[in-house]
């Protein structure tokens, strides 16, 4: 199935990544335009003890405001949210974020699959899932769930990824709608809801 180039009625863009994904984000985030009626949620594999450094770095680089994530904060359009270390990030109805300390999934907490699956249930066709570089299989199941709920599935071009394993795995099993380089991912995000 081919999706039309322009995505409309999007409420959330959720981006997952592991090793090497920060490089991609450092290219994409500084070039963003104000988000038109949607939020960006970023779920990266990170050290348990990294309490604030990733948020600080992303805030510094992104030209869209990064809002701190705490339990049950509202997910507001126009902002970026980052899954905190050592918690899984979940989505509740009525645009609320929730946290969970349950077992690691794919050796990871936060796990990309967990957040993608949860977002897929709540946002259905209004969700865009983007999976970036990494050397682990996390994210593929999540993208399958996004697809099954009618959302849009984007995978970073493995040739553009520092660690191609994770995008390759997703391409094999999750039938992405788009396989894109970093600047194409940026263009896609900018075009959303316009």
């Amino acid at each position, binding site marked *: 199935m081919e999706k039309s180039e322009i995505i409309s009625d999007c409420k959330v863009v959720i981006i997952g990544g592991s090793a090497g994904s920060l490089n991609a984000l450092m290219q994409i985030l500084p070039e963003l335009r104000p988000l038109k009626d949607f939020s960006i949620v970023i779920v990266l594999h990170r050290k348990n*003890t990294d*309490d604030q450094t990733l948020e600080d770095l992303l805030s510094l680089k992104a030209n869209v405001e990064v809002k701190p*994530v*705490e*339990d*049950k904060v509202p997910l507001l359009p126009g902002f970026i949210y980052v899954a*905190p270390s*050592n*918690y899984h990030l*979940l*989505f*509740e*109805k009525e645009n609320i974020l*929730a*946290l*969970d*300390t*349950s*077992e690691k999934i794919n050796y990871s907490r936060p796990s990309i699959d*967990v957040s993608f*699956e*949860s977002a897929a*249930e*709540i946002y259905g066709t209004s969700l865009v899932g983007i999976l970036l570089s990494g050397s682990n299989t996390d994210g593929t199941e999540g993208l399958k769930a996004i697809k099954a709920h009618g959302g849009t599935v984007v995978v970073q071009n493995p040739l553009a990824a520092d660690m191609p394993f994770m995008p390759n795995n997703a391409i094999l099993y999750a039938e992405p709608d788009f396989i894109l380089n970093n600047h194409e991912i940026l263009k896609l995000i900018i075009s959303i809801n316009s």
Partner: protein
Amino acid sequence: MIEDIELETLINDVYEYYGFDFGSYSRASLKRRVNRIFHLDGFTHFHEFLSRVRYDPEYYKRMVDEITVNVTEMFRDPAFYRVLRNEILPLLGTKPFIRLWHAGCSTGEEVYSMAIMLKEAGLLHKSIIYATDINATVLETAKKGIFPLRMMKEYSENYRDAGGLEDFSSYYIANYGIAKFNEELGEKMVFSQHNLVSDTSFNEFDMILCRNVLIYFDNDLQKRVINLFDESLAVLGFLALGTKETIKYSISPTKYKQFEKEKIWRKVK
């Protein structure tokens, strides 16, 4: 994934048959947990699962044990324990007797962490630590003070990051994959079952710790539980929550003063 309506049916049935109210638990997490046990135990139809829960109290107990998230660590968030060691314990130490409550203590790693801190501050002998959870199975583990040996490397790093100066391995005896913590640490602990949804206050405390429990509750239940803690806390006592939890929406800000950046509040009136 199970359907929303199936989850609501389960919540209603559990309330009707067992009087336990999961109605105020956060749905996103609860749904994942119910889905997990449903598949783990090999069910294919939700009605089979439902009738098993209804008519088999043993299975109901297993389900409750499995849907509560019991993951815990020793010295999780070392920065929190550093503030505890450097700022809070010296203040508590001025009291003739210290009463602490760990609500939602799970398998007890946090309670043992606290006992180690109290011991190093020279306060353990005059402390009593109540530790409660809704899940009877985890309390049994907690009482034993036995934790997996493979976790000790991480815990001793956490301990050091929390400002610990002793040899961490002097606190336990290693044996066949387990670490049994010194009995002296457990002597001041009292474990019992307590349900934050329905049970009342049972004592007055100088410090209450309830970390990573409120995240499983909706805003209304969080408010009720914070008020239960408020009733159970002495003036000038401390309340500690998980790093991503807050009392901000639950209680008048004039009553509590936050300690630095940590999720520790002091009851000022």
